[in-house]
């Protein structure tokens, strides 16, 4: 490890400088000339192309970004078998060598940064700053988990257990086996790569199923890992839709499922895991799941609205609110509720709703037609049962899955708008008599992913921290944008299995701990 420099986050692109912006626009033009990308089912050295899955630009649905084959159940079987065959040698590869491969992959991504950023802009309509952060986070995961695996191996070797005379105790963390990675589209690079890198770093073989909306990004990731020297059997690409994911999750020879996505799918995966032994599995599959959120920002009476308004607006509407960490409810002290509502409404009205590729766009189109319709349904419900203080009237481009930002107030306390994950540009604002009422409402939710607090009294801040169930609480800042090594990320309650991506403990979930105790006493003599 001593050879490796300490982990540092990949610097974001300095988009405030014009040449940086021009560089990215040029990369987008180059990428456009290459589209559509062909994404194979890629198992070992076998690549099968196909056109069952097509990703399109959410801002111009006529533009095809990637054309992919969909992995069949038989291909999932084949991939698992291939991974099982490769597992012993990858597992036996020293952690430092595995880490070196991941670091070479990081270097490749760094070289290809502009292209990957452009791809996320096109395939998932991420505005440039968001797409750039996604690529940086992907690189961070490689760098962080590579180091983490080496540290873990060193810790195992150094031994932390008590060693009384006559007894030798050793704790080691061994890889679990085959890991199925089922990834979402909203961080089409960082999240799939994070889960895959964690599995690989700890010596597992990984089968990546990228989101059906983002096979192009998934394909680029596996290509980089292979080119970096991760053996063909250790990582496979299985593009597909829900059926592919279900086949992977239910496979009796998959030991770990790393999943990020919705609660219903997460629950299905957990159910499949529980049933795996009945299907012949000789293990209990480990599920590392990151599911949804219903994230609240509490604004106390002493908050600085000059900070709170931009923080809330950015948390709720950047990337059209399509982040599991996005703000969807604001619980504001009644003393400043009117002022906050007025300023939030005005700030939402000036947000640019437009194409992701246009610098200055905050609210790009949502990912697909279904999403557009879902957000529209919630917005209508909010308008019918409450009051819209912003949105609805803003004109949006006719083509593409656009939704103007909406802010709703005065909703009934049992409104689905306040309890269900919407995953779009809709923010609900509620008045409370104080932070305790706000905490009660947060506590009543099943979700507990992120939360925010704007407040300047340190005693109140402490009090709210103590009452917060969420996995990631942000005080006096935006509630999105967790960074690897700085804000290990993951939710509690229904929001996930409590794992923290980008944190020091994450890798442990991909390992099988084993303790060996050897009696070193022979005939009363310690040998």
């Amino acid at each position, binding site marked *: 490890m001593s050879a490796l420099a300490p982990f*540092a*986050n*990949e*610097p*974001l692109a*300095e*988009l*405030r400088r*014009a040449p940086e*912006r021009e560089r990215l626009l040029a990369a987008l033009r180059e990428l456009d000339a290459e589209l559509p990308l062909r994404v194979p089912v890629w198992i070992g050295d076998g690549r099968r192309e196909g056109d069952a899955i097509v990703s399109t630009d959410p801002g111009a649905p006529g533009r095809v970004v990637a054309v992919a084959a969909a992995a069949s159940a038989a291909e999932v079987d084949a991939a698992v078998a291939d991974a099982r065959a490769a597992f012993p040698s990858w597992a036996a590869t020293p952690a430092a060598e595995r880490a070196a491969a991941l670091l070479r992959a990081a270097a490749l991504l760094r070289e290809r940064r502009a292209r990957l950023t452009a791809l996320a802009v096109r395939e998932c309509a991420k505005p*440039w*700053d968001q797409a750039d952060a996604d690529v940086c986070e992907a690189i961070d995961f490689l760098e962080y988990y590579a180091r983490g695996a080496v540290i873990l191996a060193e810790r195992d070797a150094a031994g932390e257990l008590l060693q009384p005379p006559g007894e030798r105790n050793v704790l080691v963390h061994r890889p679990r086996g085959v890991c199925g990675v089922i990834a979402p589209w909203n961080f089409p690079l960082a999240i799939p790569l994070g889960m895959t890198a964690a599995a690989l770093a700890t010596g597992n073989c990984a089968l990546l199923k990228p989101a059906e909306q983002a096979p192009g990004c998934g394909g680029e990731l596996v290509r980089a890992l292979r080119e970096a020297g991760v053996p063909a059997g250790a990582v496979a690409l299985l593009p597909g839709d829900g059926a592919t994911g279900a086949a992977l999750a239910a496979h009796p020879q998959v030991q770990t499922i790393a999943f990020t996505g919705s609660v219903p799918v997460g629950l299905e995966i957990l159910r499949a895991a529980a049933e795996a032994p009945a299907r012949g599995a000789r293990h209990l599959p480990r599920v590392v799941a990151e599911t949804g959120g219903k994230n609240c920002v509490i604004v106390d*009476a*002493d*908050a*600085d*609205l*000059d900070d709170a*308004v*931009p923080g809330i*607006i950015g948390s709720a509407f950047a990337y059209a609110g399509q982040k599991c960490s996005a703000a969807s409810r604001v619980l504001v002290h009644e*003393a400043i509720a009117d002022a906050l509502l*007025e*300023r939030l*409404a*005005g*700030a939402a*009205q*000036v947000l*640019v709703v437009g194409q992701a590729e*246009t*610098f*200055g766009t905050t609210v790009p189109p949502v990912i697909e037609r279904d999403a557009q319709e879902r957000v529209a349904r919630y917005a209508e419900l909010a308008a019918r049962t409450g009051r819209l203080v912003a949105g609805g009237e803003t004109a949006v481009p006719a083509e593409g899955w656009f939704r103007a930002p909406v802010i709703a107030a005065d909703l009934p306390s049992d409104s689905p708008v306040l309890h269900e994950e919407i995953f779009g540009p809709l923010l609900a604002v509620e008045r409370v008599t104080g932070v305790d009422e706000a905490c009660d409402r947060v506590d009543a939710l099943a979700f507990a992913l992120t939360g925010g607090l704007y407040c*300047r*009294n*340190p*005693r*109140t801040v402490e009090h709210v921290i103590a009452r917060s169930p969420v996995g990631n609480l942000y005080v006096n800042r935006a509630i999105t944008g967790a960074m690897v090594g700085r804000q290990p990320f993951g939710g509690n309650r229904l929001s996930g299995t409590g794992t923290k991506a980008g944190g020091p403990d994450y890798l442990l979930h991909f390992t099988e701990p084993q303790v060996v105790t050897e009696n070193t006493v022979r005939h009363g003599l310690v040998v």
Partner: protein
Amino acid sequence: MDPATLEPRVQAIGRDLAAALPRGGKGPLRALDEKAMDYAAQDAELRAALFRFVDVVPACRSLDDLARHLTAFLDDVGDRPPSIEAAMRMGDSRAGRAALGGAAAVGVRRMAHRFIVGATPADASAVLRALWQSGVGASVDLLGEATVTSAEADRYAARCAEALDALAGVYAGLPARPLLEADGAGPTPRVNLSVKTSALTPLLRPDAPDLGREDAAGRLRPLLRRAHAAGAHLHIDMESFDSIEAVTDLVLTVLAEDEFAAGPSAGVVLQAYLRESPAQLERLLTWTREHQRASPLTVRLVKGAYWDHEVVEAVQHGWKPPVFEVKADSDRNFEALTRRLVEARAGGAPVRIAIASHNLRSVAHAIAANEQAGGGPADLELQVLRGLGDELQAALAATGRRVRTYCPVGDLVAGMAYLVRRLLENTSNESFLHDQATGAPLDELLAAP
């Protein structure tokens, strides 16, 4: 211009100015609310507690609330002097809190009044007139909350327009002050308003400067017309590096429009702490040569008020800070830019020069450079901030220099962010005022950076 040959004059002017500083003055930092600042200077935790308190004052709803905040901040301070302990004990009872809150509110208000001349331009008129009488011009800055909506931007623009009218009234009928009313390039306005682009638009986006520039231009043009009609000078302040492209482009494109060729007098700011400021100055100078306007562009040279912000932001994002990281580099660059400015003007560039600094050395250097380049006293405007540069202002006026004082106007709520920034900046131990207040010898204060 050779800095070495300039140096003897810099020293002589610096000594003259130092001698002209008002005697018995307590220095701007000494004069600050006594005990609080003494404590703040001694102890980093107390300093943090004080600033956090000042910051939250306008958001507190009652004296009780004020006292609760104050004691909560002080709670975080490890080593509390006896008088702070006493304050903490007052926080235990309702009556105690009312008294403590009341005292604290008075203290903060007093502090604020040193830096903020009034709630409105009309309130400020007595101060502005008195300054003029003593031979000191002003640039008024309207404080306000951040602009996050179009309505707020409109309101700010309307306040600026009203201020132009109000200030015309304030300055009407005052006696002539020739040093302030003309320089080698012609007459200069009495009324001078500083505006902030971030207040003129809610759309400043670091990665999309055009968005904010266009939106702000829509509000800046009417203000320029109004200023022209009122014979006023409009100065566009510079803010953080995130907005520098939008602000610079805004000023240079709008002032280049035919409509504004005849006026008003207007200006921009150049921040010497920026590594790229020499290139920015060249861009400004080229622009002045290419765009002949009736009033030459005024360039206000400052060091830059967002140093900590720039460094923290850069470190958090993994960027090289756009600012120098060694104070002397900023000071040296300030002097280099000063020389470049006076030389360019001597060489025919239509530019007016304003040197905004409280640093005796930086100011003395500028005066010497101006002289050397053949400029008269009216050709170099020296600018200070109200409340921080009061003594330097007096010394400059007394020695026959052209001085303008930047006078923030606004209520306490709007002014608190400004107040905190000034307090932070000037209790930083990298600041000239701090060195001066803590008794650094004159030789050291005047030494070349």
